[in-house]
């Protein structure tokens, strides 16, 4: 028995550790450091229909126990991802979760329809929560009705299960979660970044060229945990949790809160080996908790 095994719609994960979208490119860079087959899955960078150049620089700024980013969904576009990135990833024994972004429903649907046909894409992650683009992204994630409709439209064309990525920048995240569940989502991933800003001490102007950026890293973990805790008790679809994970204890926290698997974002920048390190540490953590298989921990905070 593999104690770390996790079964989710479309995803048979050898462990619950997944690099988060946007923090791992399309895997090529980290493949130079370790074997990607070790990972539970990989969430690739948001892909849009057309090539996207993203925002002007500076695109990142450091904050207390966190960072802001405003990459602006820069990516090489659907065609390139289908032709080069996904086939390249096929050499690894690892399911791919394709992060799908767009400006309007047509965009999302077009990307989802196509990218879900790639043989190693086992699930989609619908990015309705990117705070760093002018159109598309977050406004789909802040209104329950819009979120639900977009989910349904994408579900109608996708060949693989659809996970919807929620924004924490809302009054009532449970309401959005229920709406995407009603729209047919197979799972939820949460949280995307909190909207934040840092100013330059001398000039007083925003450091990030885009003005605002998305806050991630350990600073946001308490916010993410409480949202996973709340949502997991109100929906019947699984959650992939993220926000500030840096070690195996953080992973256990997210599972306890109600997530079935987790994604690790910013921590990859701090320690590029963080994902394999966590995977190696997990069995011992389970021993310490007298826990046979990791899935037993899911939701224990509210049981």
């Amino acid at each position, binding site marked *: 028995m593999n104690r770390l095994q996790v079964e989710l719609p479309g995803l048979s994960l050898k462990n619950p550790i997944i690099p988060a979208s*946007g*923090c*791992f*490119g399309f895997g*090529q*860079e*980290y493949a*130079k*450091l370790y074997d990607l087959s070790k990972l539970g899955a990989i969430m690739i*960078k948001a892909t849009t229909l057309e*090539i996207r*150049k*993203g925002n002007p*620089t*500076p*695109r*990142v*700024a*450091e*904050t*207390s*126990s*966190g*960072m802001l*980013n405003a*990459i602006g969904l*820069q990516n090489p576009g659907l065609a390139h991802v289908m032709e080069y990135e996904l086939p390249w990833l096929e050499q690894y024994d690892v399911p791919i979760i394709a992060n799908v972004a767009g400006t309007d429903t047509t965009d999302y649907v077009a990307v989802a329809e196509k990218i879900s046909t790639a043989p190693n894409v086992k699930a989609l992650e619908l990015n309705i929560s990117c705070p760093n683009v002018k159109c598309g992204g977050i406004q789909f994630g802040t209104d329950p009705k819009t979120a639900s409709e977009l989910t349904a439209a994408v579900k109608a064309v996708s060949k693989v299960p659809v996970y919807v990525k929620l924004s924490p920048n809302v009054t009532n995240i449970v309401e959005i979660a229920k709406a995407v569940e009603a729209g047919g989502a197979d799972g939820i991933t949460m949280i995307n970044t909190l909207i934040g800003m840092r100013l330059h001490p001398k000039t007083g102007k925003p450091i990030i060229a885009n003005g605002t950026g998305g806050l991630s*890293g*350990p*600073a946001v973990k308490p916010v993410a945990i409480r949202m996973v805790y709340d949502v997991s008790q109100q929906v019947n679809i699984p959650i992939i949790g993220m926000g500030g994970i*840096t070690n195996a204890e953080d992973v256990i926290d997210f599972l306890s809160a109600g997530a079935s698997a987790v994604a690790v974002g*910013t921590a*990859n*920048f*701090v*320690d*590029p*080996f963080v994902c394999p390190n966590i995977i190696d540490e997990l069995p011992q953590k389970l021993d310490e908790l007298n826990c046979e298989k990791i899935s037993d921990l899911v939701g224990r905070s509210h049981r």
Partner: protein
Amino acid sequence: MIKQERMKVVRHKQIADDIFELTLIGQLSLEMKQPGQFVHIRVSDSFEPLLRRPISICSIDPEHMEFTMLYRAGGRGTKLLSLKQPGDEVDILGPLGNGFPVEEANTGETALLVGGGIGVPPLYELSKQLNAKGVRTIHVLGFQSINNVFYEKQFSELGETYIVTADGSYGTKGFVTDLLAQLNPEFDVFYSCGPLPMLKALEQTYPDKKGFLSFEERMGCGLGACYACVCKTTDAVENDYLKVCSDGPVFPRGVVAL
């Protein structure tokens, strides 16, 4: 190959106002080959500060498994770094990026190395490698003021060295381009690292020369995965953007839009 290692501090001292010279020992040094590459440093085991700091490799000593970097203790992270004592460990990721192409200067030719402020360090290993190959080097190094000047002696041992200070407190007064205009040196290729206006002025001053420029941008991963550190390219280049961390930090002249 890119490695991560807790390297040990061998020597650490202040060599000018806010400028520190840090020598580390470890296997990772053996991976360093090209001048102009950088390392990504975690200055603390806590999340405060969170991100790594990119610092150029200033000189490599594979025989002793050591390398040296020079850095300015300006912000929170580098100030913490400056507190490290001999024997302490520092978490290093590297070597990263593509450095200065030594092969673009042929034996017997002359290379002009132009550095500004904290852009000076990577030119030192470059100059060492060029001289080792029989390339003559001319060094033009610009600083703010006399208290900021460092490594004059080290560069002088390798070739003609000119110091420029913005306030005239040492060497020639003005910008490096002012001195270059006076000097009008003969050379085959130039290499440079420093503030953007300096890089721009150089490209304009020598429109027909072969040249290589090193750039800076705020980084996330340092590996090419996060798209934080992109720079805009000129029309001459097919890609709209390039990543400073993995495509650079050194680019041939004319590639990056200045």
